[in-house]
């Protein structure tokens, strides 16, 4: 039997931008987001094993490969790029760069999302809690040690910035890592990629 599918009208709010879409009933949120240009959401295993496609959906971290696009109708989606950009990185993204927690970088967007979800709920996690919180994200370069350090660094910096809200990290004399500056200028050259 051939099934004739009828497209379904949905609305997604992704990184603050509203998208009114017609999607196939069998469309997966992962593919819909990538087709919209949010290619920081990585397509890894497509079976919920690797976490590379993790996004925040209404504030909750989920594998976007296991959500039908229609199930996300009306939802607020935040991807890694929605947390920060190369010019204005989020504290977590900066911590990943500073800790050397990025090797090939493919798992990083998902790792960052899971870190955000973890620190939102538990601002001062133990190493065990970090490893548990990130256990749905696989890193094939197996650089888990640095990733754990990145989360610890992010937690420290977030705690410091919330205890002294008037002073940003930079003003406290934190030198930007040379790598950071490279990344930032690289980003400026490529300008607006993924937006």
């Amino acid at each position: 039997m051939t099934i004739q599918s009828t497209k379904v009208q949905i609305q997604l709010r992704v990184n603050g931008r509203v998208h009114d879409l017609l999607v196939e009933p069998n469309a997966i949120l992962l593919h819909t987001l990538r087709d919209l240009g949010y290619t920081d959401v990585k397509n890894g295993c497509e079976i919920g094993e690797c976490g590379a496609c993790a996004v925040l959906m209404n504030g909750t971290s989920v594998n976007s490969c296991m959500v039908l696009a229609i199930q996300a109708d009306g939802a607020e989606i935040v991807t890694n790029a929605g947390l920060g950009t190369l010019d204005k990185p989020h504290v977590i993204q900066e911590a990943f760069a500073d800790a050397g927690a990025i090797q090939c970088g493919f798992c990083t967007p998902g790792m960052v999302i899971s870190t955000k979800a973890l620190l939102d709920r538990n601002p001062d996690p133990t190493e065990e809690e970090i490893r548990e919180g990130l256990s749905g994200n696989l890193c094939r370069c197996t650089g888990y040690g640095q990733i754990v350090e990145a989360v610890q660094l992010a937690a420290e910096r977030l705690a410091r910035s919330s205890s002294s809200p008037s002073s940003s990290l930079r003003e406290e004399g934190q030198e930007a890592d040379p790598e950071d500056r490279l990344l930032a200028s690289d980003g400026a050259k490529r300008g607006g990629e993924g937006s």
Partner: protein
Amino acid sequence: MLPVFEVKRPATLTEALEALAGGTNVHPIAGGTNLIVDTRAGKIAPDLVVTISDLAELRGIEIRDNKIRIGATTTLAELAESDIIAQHADVLHQMSKSFANVLIRNRATIGGNLVNAAPCADTAPAFLVLDAQVELASIDGTRCVPLDEFFVNAFETTRQTNEILTAVWFPVPSKYSVGRFEKMGLRKISCMAKVDVAISITLDRNGLCEKARIALGAASPAALRAVDAEAELVGQQLSTQRIETAAVKAAATVVPRSGSEYKREVVQGLVRRLLTAATEKGVQQ
């Protein structure tokens, strides 16, 4: 891409049940952690998928008539955060915190895990030791099935294709009951169980075992209770020797597949460990 299917987004349970009554190849979807993976793998090929995650009738955790009712689309993450569950059903609380990983717990539902009936479904043994029943609804009405009659075989339950599992019920456990859950897998966290063990015991004021439940997951095609091991404990002081006898009987319940005979030893060890810990806690109470 997934194979093509139609989708229906009902606003009420009745609408969902009507959709399910309309054909045999109609599948409800809640968290999607099984359905999407199985559809992609070609294990199922739905004609129609009915979204049920937003139905109010299937949500919430409440105490009613001295029973705890958990709506079927309650996620494992919601279960882990529930004060009612943490206070009254420690075995379920422990299970929910060790279920897969955060990303999966945020989507996977208790109803989906039970209906899928994988031999290694973590929810199954935890609910079995709580004497849980599942509530199944169709357009013809609602029925309740004790969980130990619900599981038939691996990935096979007594649910009819026109039924939706709407809730899980169990009596509020005695405040003197102690539950424990542990799994053995290939990783410390975020793994499929190679063996699941859930126990729940209640000791009376003299330290005698009033009630005992032991259930195993991934140790046979369907999750099951180790009733012979339970019988070993009831009315007895839970001495080291008594616990060992029960652990040996629990191990004998295992139905290993070729190459998984080791599961008997794992079950024996886990049952011993959990019963010992629960007895210590139970005596203090």
